[in-house]
């Protein structure tokens, strides 16, 4: 064995990747397959599955109830992604203009929220947003700025706010990475050729940062569409996203096959969206 590893570089490479390969096969690929198989089976009365082929799960998924929740989730995820982009891009750009020492510090500051569990941070938002006892409404009312509490909680506003807060750093990081390695002499060249600031941005900076924008948008969009804790807490449980419906199938309705079918559909949609997005964006951006 040792002989083989010493003599054969290919065997060495295989030996090195084997642990991660096995790990991914067992803990990533296998569960996905189980979800896929379950989605074609019949539900057990109180959870579990009965080994009987049943294509109806996918028909049910197209039911207006679940379909409209799906569209709503897409809408919330798109709005979240756009807001993150509008807020995150200038921030990322500004950080690249700082001296290198400051940049590291700023990136570190961006990471600090991740040191606390997302669930706890979401609960902290509750303290701020609650309609009648939340810090924001109480302060504004006692200052006399508003007479009636603002509707800050248990609505789409609260859900999107919570999602933007949670995923903004993930948008900033790849954009920052793309902007930082942008060759500044290209900007100077454009300016030498009498490009206006607007043109410099639209023709040089934006296209070259596009891979970062694409990566950041995917990193925000995917968790946002599947989010589950944020709508449950900040939405007051009053509006469901597809993540809540899926979790309900397992935790409340005891319908694993239907939950699996919804998960499978969601994965397919995201896979398709990712492929289309990457292809079109990379064509425009001229590759990474």
């Amino acid at each position, binding site marked *: 064995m040792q002989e083989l590893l010493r003599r054969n570089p290919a065997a060495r490479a295989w030996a090195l990747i084997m642990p991660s390969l096995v790990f991914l096969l067992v803990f990533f690929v296998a*569960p996905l397959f*189980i*979800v896929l198989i*379950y989605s074609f*089976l019949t539900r*057990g*009365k*109180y*959870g*579990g599955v009965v*080994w009987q082929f049943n294509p109806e799960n996918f028909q049910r998924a197209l039911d207006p*109830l679940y379909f*409209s*929740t799906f569209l*709503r989730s897409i809408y919330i995820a798109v709005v979240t992604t756009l807001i993150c982009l509008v807020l995150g891009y200038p921030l990322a750009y500004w950080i690249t203009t700082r001296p*290198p020492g400051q*940049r*590291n510090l700023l*990136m570190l500051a961006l*990471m600090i929220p*991740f040191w606390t569990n*997302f*669930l706890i941070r979401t609960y902290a938002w509750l303290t701020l947003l*609650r*309609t*009648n*006892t939340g810090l924001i409404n109480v302060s504004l009312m006692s200052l006399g700025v508003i007479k009636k509490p603002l509707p800050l*909680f*248990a609505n789409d506003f609260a859900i999107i706010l919570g999602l933007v807060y949670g*995923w903004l*750093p*993930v948008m900033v*990081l790849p954009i920052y*990475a793309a902007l*930082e*390695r942008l060759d500044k002499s290209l900007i100077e060249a454009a300016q030498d050729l009498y490009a206006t600031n607007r043109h410099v941005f639209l023709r040089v900076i934006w296209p070259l940062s596009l891979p970062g924008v694409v990566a950041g948008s995917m990193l925000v969009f995917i*968790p946002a569409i*599947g989010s*589950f*804790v944020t709508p449950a807490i900040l939405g*007051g*449980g*009053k*509006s*469901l996203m597809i*993540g*809540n*419906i*899926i*979790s*309900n199938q*397992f*935790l*409340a*309705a*005891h*319908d*694993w096959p239907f939950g*699996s079918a919804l*998960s499978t559909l969601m994965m397919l949609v995201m896979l398709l969206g990712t492929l289309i997005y990457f292809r079109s964006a990379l064509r425009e951006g001229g590759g990474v």
Partner: protein
Amino acid sequence: MSRSLLFVMLVAVVLVAVACAPPPAPAPAPAQPEQPAAAEQPPAAPEVQPASEIVLYNWSEYIDPEIYTQFKELTGIDVLEDNFSSNEEMLAKLQGGASGYALIVPSDYTVAIMIEEGMLHKLDHDNIPNLVNLSERFRNVPYDPGNVYCVPYQWGTTGIGYDSAVIDAPTSWAAIFEPDPNTPWYGRTTMLDDPRESFAAALTYLGYDINTTDEKQLQEAKEVLIRAKPGLSGYDSDTFEDLVASGENVMAHGWNGDFLVAQEDNENVAYVVPEEGGVVWVDNICIPATATPEQKLAAEMFINYLLEPEVGAQLSEYNYYASPNAAAEEILGEEFLGDPTIYPPPEVLEKLQYIEPVGEMESLYQRLWDEVKSS
């Protein structure tokens, strides 16, 4: 900043994000959950020693933690606790293969389901001599006559809690189901995030059986629940009483004892069963079939300890729920037993109904509940 450092940070962020994301689905269990041979198991051999540590899977804030300390001193056994917030959640976890629990606290209708599914151990009454302390009516509950599988833990009712400093007692479910923007509780009310309980409230308001399997009645109840939604600030089964006590909300659909506990923070919190009626329930302590003989023995010792008169009284004084334990009631005294919120008077009691299993119709309840919540 070097690119590799940035990359490491990005990976770290994604990993943290993934770790924080809720599990998308329970761990896949064996497709055909083998039914543990609960009933056939040979009687525990005399040399079985009780486990030194067991886990109780319970509703939150439902047991005085002091009881664990006392039990540990007495027997040397550690009792750890994990919490759930609905029967459905607990059932789903156990069905999903969670096997670490030696004790669980399901409500009446869920006990019936779990017996049918073979998910519970039969209790060895020799290890629970304190069973004699139970009141007569709790020795023969309809879902488990003779306490073969479970021992009643506490019982209570579902109605409406409210802030008596702001409003008078809501005497009808109309307060929730006919929302009016001019009332002080509009937008400051929660309902339980629990399909069976919330449908029970709507069905009671409509004058129907809360265990109906008539689809037309259920559709009607769904419409009533949707109509109530603009007046609600949310669906909540865990903190509804605290939100009334803090002044965030004025009214909440919930369980009687929880509101009484909240009175410690705000004496104006009160509770009423509306005149149309409400739900009465019994929570029970049982041993899941996945428990080992050692865990089962320790669990039976703990059940027996809970049935001690003093411990039963201690339990009720902590969670403000009525006790099924006649010997404990003697210690609790007149003031506790005479509290109509804890022990509903006969005229209220007769308007209360039990939630019962609805079998295949459960998925319809869940589906209509999804429609309510996503409307």
